[in-house]
């Protein structure tokens, strides 16, 4: 079962977070700090799964952005690992070359996408909707504003 989903950049700034079990807001910050710390401490030669407390972290790095999913013991790590990639592919298609800025800027869109993507929340995974635009009416009001492109890294994360 998925416990939480995080997008954090290398500086430790949270870009997106979703918890499936209620975690106190103060504990969230602490948890996110620890999670990104343990992700950053890993090298390429080490595996993408970390044991953290009584659950497992599965992470993938895209440019400076880490996507981390916390799951419990019963989950298939590799399935989640690929699931993250699938999610990023969907985003990439939606934004055409998705970047970290998009993530922070279109927070709600991301939540919506992730929601649709992993709809049977917690218990594993659903097939991803390839085209999310139809699901995401927000786009209309948050059209990308080019003046902010410099704010965060615009390197495509995928």
């Amino acid at each position: 079962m998925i416990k939480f989903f995080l997008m954090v950049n290398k500086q430790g700034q949270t870009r997106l977070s979703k918890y499936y079990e209620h975690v106190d807001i103060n504990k969230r910050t602490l948890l996110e700090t620890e999670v990104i710390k343990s992700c950053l401490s890993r090298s390429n030669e080490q595996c993408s799964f970390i044991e953290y407390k009584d659950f497992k972290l599965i992470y993938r790095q895209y440019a400076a952005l880490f996507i981390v999913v916390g799951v419990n013991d019963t989950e298939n790590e590799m399935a989640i690992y690929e699931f993250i990639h699938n999610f990023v592919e969907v985003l990439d298609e939606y934004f055409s070359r998705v970047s970290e800025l998009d993530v922070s800027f279109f927070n709600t869109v991301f939540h919506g996408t992730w929601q649709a993507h992993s709809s049977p929340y917690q218990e594993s995974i659903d097939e991803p909707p390839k085209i999310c635009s139809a699901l995401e009416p927000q786009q209309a009001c948050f059209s990308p504003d080019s003046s902010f492109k410099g704010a965060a890294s615009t390197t495509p994360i995928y």
Partner: protein
Amino acid sequence: MSDIVEKTLTALPGLFLQNQPGGGPAAAKASFSSRLGSLVRGITALTSKHEEEKLIQQELSSLKATVSAPTTTLKMMKECMVRLIYCEMLGYDASFGYIHAIKLAQQGNLLEKRVGYLAVSLFLHESHELLLLLVNTVVKDLQSTNLVEVCMALTVVSQIFPREMIPAVLPLIEDKLQHSKEIIRRKAVLALYKFHLIAPNQVQHIHIKFRKALCDRDVGVMAASLHIYLRMIKENSSGYKDLTGSFVTILKQVVGGKLPVDFNYHSVPAPWLQIQLLRILGLLGKDDQRTSELMYDVLDESLRRAELNHNVTYAILFECVHTVYSIYPKSELLEKAAKCIGKFVLSPKINLKYLGLKALTYVIQQDPTLALQHQMTIIECLDHPDPIIKRETLELLYRITNAQNVTVIVQKMLEYLHQSKEEYVIVNLVGKIAELAEKYAPDNAWFIQTMNAVFSVGGDVMHPDIPNNFLRLLAEGFDDETEDQQLRLYAVQSYLTLLDMENVFYPQRFLQVMSWVLGEYSYLLDKETPAEVIAKLYKLLMNDSVSSETKTWLIAAVTKLTPQAHSSDTVERLIHEFTISLDTCMRQHAFELKHLHENVELMTSLLPVDRSCEDLAVDASLSFLDGFVAEGLSQGAAPYKPHHQRQEEKLSQEKVLNFEPYGLSFSSSGFTGRQSPAGISLGSDISGNSAETGLKETNSLKLEGIKKLWGKEGYLPKKESKTGDESGALPIPQESIMENVDQTITKKDQSQVLTQSKEEKEKQLLASSLFVGLGSESTVNLLGKADTVSHKFRRKSKIKEAKSGEASSTHNMTCSSFSSLSNVAYEDDYYLNTLHDRGDKELKTFSLNSELLDSESLTELPLVEKFSNCSLSTPSLFADNSMEIFHPPQSIAASVAKESSLASSFLEETTEYIHSNAMEVCNNETISVSSYKIWKDDCLLMVWSVTNKSGLELKSANLEIFPAENFKVTEQPGCCLPIMEAESTKSFQYSVQIEKPFTEGILSGFIRPLKISSEDFGKLWLSFANDVKQNVKMSESQAALPSALKTLQQKLRLHIIEIIGNEGLLACQLLPSIPCLLHCRVYADVLALWFRSSCSTLPDYLLYQCQKVIEGS
């Protein structure tokens, strides 16, 4: 599915555009987005946490002003919500906005509503008070004609919904299962899945509809229903065996690429769906050969298809391997799966290696020889630079530990432990080491030293069971007394040496263990005198780094040693110093010691040597305090209130929001006895029958925070309920092992001949020491020399064998007559509580079965009518209930009327109990079997009545009842009947009792009236913590309270205590003795039910039953 989502929703943007008045003024839009933009930009630009905090606090205060301003439009509100979400995501409290998020969801147009819902689902949690305010909105949106609104409402329900309000939306969501749009159906299924997770009792009546969802023509809906099935099958796999065929067919289609291309991920068809299905199959096929056989083909196919070299196929393969090893084994598949594991383990890709190790860890429990094949890889992984890989390897080694390799494995574990700093890892690993050491220790010295390491590293974070078990082990000893003494002596010696070392700090728990052992077993020493030991303990006592809890352990040890030391200055000094201690506990102990010290004779009799295991008689009722209590009460002291009662009172004072109409309180109806001055009479009651009430009170005394060390059986660590789960010895063909051994030996020979680098040699050496037990030794074990020999520290008799939970839950009944020519195999499984309404249900199941499956049930259907060889599945008493009737071919008509009169004559004998009507189980020309249930006070009596309608004698009829989990079935006397005369009726009686209280799937057959007075009701009511409330609409026929209650009494066997005006009190109990109370109140045609019980699931269940009864009638 995505294709369909697209199709469904491409029609929708048109709607949005209509609702969006032209997108609004462009300038306003820019300013909104730029506010979020500037926030994001601002935060990104900052360098320190402090600055960020300042910025966000600023942002939050401006947001707070905006959201509470009356002029804020919904549109602005939506923008504010987005920023609030962002702030809260960064960890800043934005709780002031929660209520506005709910408002936005209530009032906004489509887009605003959506943001509102999203904010709610991110901000709130299940038990948040504000969530109740959302229910109305959800109900409204569910009824909306706009698909998007329905979708949003369903989404939010599947994410977050208050448990108590489920009945309000349940019928609406059930309707949505028939909706014409796939996406709505899918979301409805997910919402029901959520309900199943949080309140399974409330959705148990829609299981049939889940089956429909499973065979929905849309893949998405089907996939969603799999989540529910996975969950339900995990809880009870035997109930869904009939669906195996469907799952297999679905998987076949998925694997065969029959799904739309949209479901492909890197040209692998629906990988996550496959994984889900494989998991379900694994659960279904576990220990069930017949079911497993159905899936061999498709598993083979899956293994074959997943050849593609891509990560996601590995994920599928991993799941396949898991399933293959979970179900009833088939050698071909096992071989293939083992090959797959090899591929994983040998892969240079680190993630795959991890997966391989994980698979191997699982598989090795079934087939330890696989470890031999991969031993070199395992050794490499043991020294892998990645600690995660190392850990996984240790986990694997833990599973293959035996008496031969235990020292090496434990050493490796300890090495890892010394490097690790993470608390969770330490706790986990320390527990494992302790377990292994206890099970396989080769000798005393090693055992004590390992445990010393465990205690010093595990310190105060480890599980408290570990020191407790260790001490119990020492105290209870093993079969050999001299061995025991040696172990104890060694422990004492090693602790004394440890204490001699200067400047070493031991964790408190370790010191506690030491002090107990020294206190108990120092007498075994020859050299050191007790006085010397006392001196050492004294030194520790004076140490400031020792906690006061440990100090009490130390004093206790000193107290035990004092009688042996005769006279000791140290003791006197100690008494002198601690009688003035500021710590009350210490002072108490010191005074005890002082008084005992003055009376040596009493002391030696109180503290005998080596008697820690002997039983002490404990006066649990504390009757010696009765006089004291009575005196206190007569002087006006308040009577004792049990913990939960006090808590209840405290809670009732603290309650913030009262969701109940004020009328529902009890104060009017005479439960005031509790607080009134009648307390004195209550008090005299207590002292009157102290034996009983005293016992009750001590039971309810909460010993929280108090370490319970001594009890009736002496020293009281937790009873271990572990049984030897290490017996991984499985029936493996012997030759294969021999072969393996040969292989390894030849391998070793070869390797020795070859010149090798030194490193290699070391590894080989390590390998041979690690895998030693798996080769030759395990053959010996398998040959019959039980594994038990290797259990060095086997507990004496005191281990309570865990009840064989796997007791077969079949309940077979075999009636056979003498001359049998044709057989009737009548297989039925019906749940006790659904006996009444089986008729129609069974039909439904059938029609569904035939829809769903291409398996046997279809072919069986016509045969039911023929009655010559039928097996039909109906709901039944216990899981699998098969009855076989062999009947003579002669068909001699017998009047059914006669039979029923016979049956009723039998029932007359038992009329003092309530009984069900006779249910015909099966019937044909020669024989008829029917059953009744009689609800006796202490058990459920099942009566099977067999009528022989033929004119011939029935020579032998047996009724065989097989045990079912959680139930005890006892045969009543006079049940065997060797000969049955023509045209007569005989009955078999079986009493069914619940063996231990369990509440999963409570059976209505075990609900009994609880006859108590109104006052008792009041007292009990306050003492129960679990309550459930619900309003039920009554039908006109029973609008009056008495008639409604009468129905409940008859149908559910609740006891009516009293009816006061429009309120009624009822009580019942679940056998053997779980009480549940019900308070009813009538407003117009609505009946407000309020349940309370000591058990959390019972009220839910009863509520469901009551609803059924009242709404149904």
